[in-house]
């Protein structure tokens, strides 16, 4: 045995030391491998890649000079064209000159622009604890105050109106706390009644309070709201109002009580069956017939009512999906623990069902925010309405389509893409939590 070993040691071709690892072939490593696998793996793929490259080049070569050769300082489209002198280039000057109109509309008082801006910034502070589980919890009270603060900032007027509105909610909550021990229904309806009584009484006190402590901002009527601000107002208000209504409708649709069930079914199916534009027509020309004569309900409020109804029907369907996706065992377990219907819903069913329906709800919210542009059809001056109406009709800027619509599209894209990315992030968060 050892003999053969010795022989082996003698043989010239036996290597005694290991060779260093060779680098992989050029075609099988790094960027070349990636290119081969992802872009040029077959003839068809190569063709597809070339076509795509051509398409990208075609789009970029058409748009890039136009974007970067743009004119920022001019007073009219004519001046833009003079400056460009035949070269391709955008006339961004329109955005520069009409910037405030695009954001706030024509009639919002210019010295109050800081108010909606502040409300917009504070919106993120208020939303942070709701949207991000890691945000500090002690921001939650601010979230509760925010709707009233935002109303005061955007609409102005006496500070006592939103304060009293908030106080009504506090009163309702206190009544609820006292009565809920007896039964949920008692607490719920008692709270609503108490809040209503408080609000009707506070209407008498508010003028006196305003006279004593006149904390006021310049009041801005709703018809002066416009531009992107109007889209944001409609979007946030309608989504937040439609969430509770939608949940209630979904529960109603799942209910055992036939009358309540059928009221909800008919409402949901009717709203989902007609386009939003017909509902806006209702808000614009029909709703006035169904309100008491000589009542002054301004257009923005009527539009908010109709869009909220629209959104809540869609949210109801999403939540219903969430409710249906829960295993039956959850309902039975809740019943086995001796929980009654409101307790089971609040403690067991809804938290899980809502978690499942978050992506759907976010989709509805994004869709609704995009649909707020439809109000331009009924002569409200939101971002699209501003562009189509006052700006494109003006003698200076008649004909600046691409720049304005590109700007509007970019604004909406940033907001909607941001929200949908957030929803995907949240979905991932919730998934890991469940495992």
């Amino acid at each position, binding site marked *: 045995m050892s003999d053969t070993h010795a022989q082996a040691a003698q043989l010239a071709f036996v290597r005694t030391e290991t060779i260093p690892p060779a680098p992989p072939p050029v075609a099988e490593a790094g960027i070349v491998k990636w290119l081969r*696998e*992802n872009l040029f793996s077959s003839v068809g793929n190569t063709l*597809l890649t070339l076509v*795509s490259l051509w398409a990208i080049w075609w789009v970029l070569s058409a748009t890039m000079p136009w974007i970067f050769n743009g004119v920022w300082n001019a007073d009219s489209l004519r001046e833009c064209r003079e400056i460009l002198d035949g070269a391709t280039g955008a006339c961004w000057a329109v955005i520069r000159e009409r910037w405030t109109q695009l954001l706030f509309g024509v009639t919002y008082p210019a010295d109050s622009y800081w108010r909606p801006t502040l409300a917009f910034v504070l919106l993120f502070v208020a939303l942070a604890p709701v949207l991000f589980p890691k945000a500090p919890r002690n921001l939650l009270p601010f979230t509760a105050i925010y709707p009233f603060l935002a109303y005061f900032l955007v609409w102005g007027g006496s500070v006592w109106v939103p304060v009293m509105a908030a106080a009504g909610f506090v009163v309702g909550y206190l009544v609820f706390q006292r009565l809920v021990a007896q039964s949920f229904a008692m607490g719920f309806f008692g709270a609503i009644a108490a809040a209503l009584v408080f609000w009707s009484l506070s209407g008498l006190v508010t003028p006196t309070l305003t006279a004593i402590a006149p904390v006021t901002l310049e009041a801005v009527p709703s018809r002066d709201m416009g531009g992107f601000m109007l889209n944001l107002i409609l979007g946030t208000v309608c989504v937040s109002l439609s969430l509770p209504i939608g949940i209630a409708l979904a529960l109603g649709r799942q209910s055992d009580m036939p009358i309540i069930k059928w009221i909800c079914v008919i409402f949901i199916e009717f709203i989902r069956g*007609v386009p939003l534009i*017909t509902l806006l027509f209702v808000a614009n020309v029909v709703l006035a017939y169904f309100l008491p*004569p000589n009542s002054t309900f301004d257009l923005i409020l009527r539009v908010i009512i109709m869009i909220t109804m629209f959104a809540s029907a869609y949210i109801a369907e999403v939540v219903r999906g969430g409710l249906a996706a829960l295993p039956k065992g959850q309902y039975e377990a809740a019943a086995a623990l001796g929980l009654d219907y409101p307790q089971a819903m609040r403690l067991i069913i809804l938290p899980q069902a809502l978690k499942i329906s978050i992506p759907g709800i976010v989709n509805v919210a994004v869709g609704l925010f*995009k649909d707020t542009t439809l109000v331009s059809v009924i002569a409200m001056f939101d971002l699209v309405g501003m562009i189509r109406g006052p700006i494109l009709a003006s003698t200076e800027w008649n004909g600046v389509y691409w720049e304005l619509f590109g700007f509007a599209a970019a604004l909406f894209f940033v907001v909607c893409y941001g929200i949908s990315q957030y929803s995907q992030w949240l979905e991932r968060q919730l998934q890991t939590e469940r495992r």
Partner: protein
Amino acid sequence: MASVTDPEPPRESFRLSMLLNDTRYRGYTFQFIALLLLILFMAYLGWNLVRNLVDQGQDISFEFMGQPASYDINQRLIPYDSQDTHLRAAFVGVLNTLLVAFLGCVTATVLGVLAGVLRLSKNWLVAKLMAFYVEIFRNVPVLIWILIIFFVMTAALPAPSAFRGDDPDSSMLFGAFAFTNRGVYVPRPIWEAGSAIVVAVFLASLVAVFAYRRYATKLLYDTGRLLPMGWPSLAILIVPTLLAFFALGQPISLEYPELRGFNFQDGIQVRGSLIALWFALAIYTGAFIAENVRAGIMSVSHGQTEAAAALGLRPRRIMSLVILPQALRVVIPPVISQYLNLTKNSSLAIAVGYMDVTGTLGGITLNQTGRAIESVMLLMLFYLVISLTISAVMNLYNNAVKLKER
């Protein structure tokens, strides 16, 4: 021995408080209250309506639908002039809505399926490009897309006069299509005597194609014999129609648009508003359909592909026999509701002046007659009927393809 009998359960007499505290009766109480509130609310609205109508000296009547509309509709499928009634104007609008919805659905499906499949492509660049398309179009309001395309159609395209002269600035595509700022002019087919036979032959061959494919499938399942599907279908579809067409002396010809005077004459004028609406709805909805298609294909587990391959199926057969039937079950319901959304979104036609039912009945008729309640009610009814029809079809389909479990 004393027999043990169940003690008679204590019989509780009905008390009024049980209506609220006893779960057996509470449901009735709530339903009664809800119904009462609803009736009160409706009565309140109705009372307001009556008072408002009396105040303004109006009434609810649909007589205006029979009166002359006295406005023109520039894009129509059926004959109409301004002396026709509002009812006919509304009907022209309905047809226009259905036209743009049909065109939009077909185009959106093609775009959506293409983008959805390509987004799953192994080609990195193509996949990213399609993701870009989907995100860009999904996240911007469809109204903005409609307006952008509309302004391109009306502001960026040349006027008809640019086509004039020996060396015109613009020329017609293939000598048949003219893209102008007044719309696109396309050739009009002229139906002469005998054309009905050609059309009938074409329809018959359509039926024949389906019959052949059915027969081939049945043969495959019964005997395992595989007949070719692709080229015989194509041949059955085309050859008899072509034969009939030439045998009858070419009864169908095309009338090309021609520049005469200030405008194009002959041919069919497709307004820029229709094209803007059609394309915008198609690319917008296409982006959503692409996501549905992608989700559907991804929902078929990889094990299915591998199992089919293990059975010895070829890649194309795996696709058509294993993946697609399973994916389609997931894809079709959301796609149908996208069709529904597209149809409802087509009401945005009013923003670009395309005379769909919202533009005629809900637009000019409403403004001319002041019959807001009646017009909006009819408008809603129309859309409601369409929606309910489509969801009925969807339910039928869902029941047909539902997994038959146990």
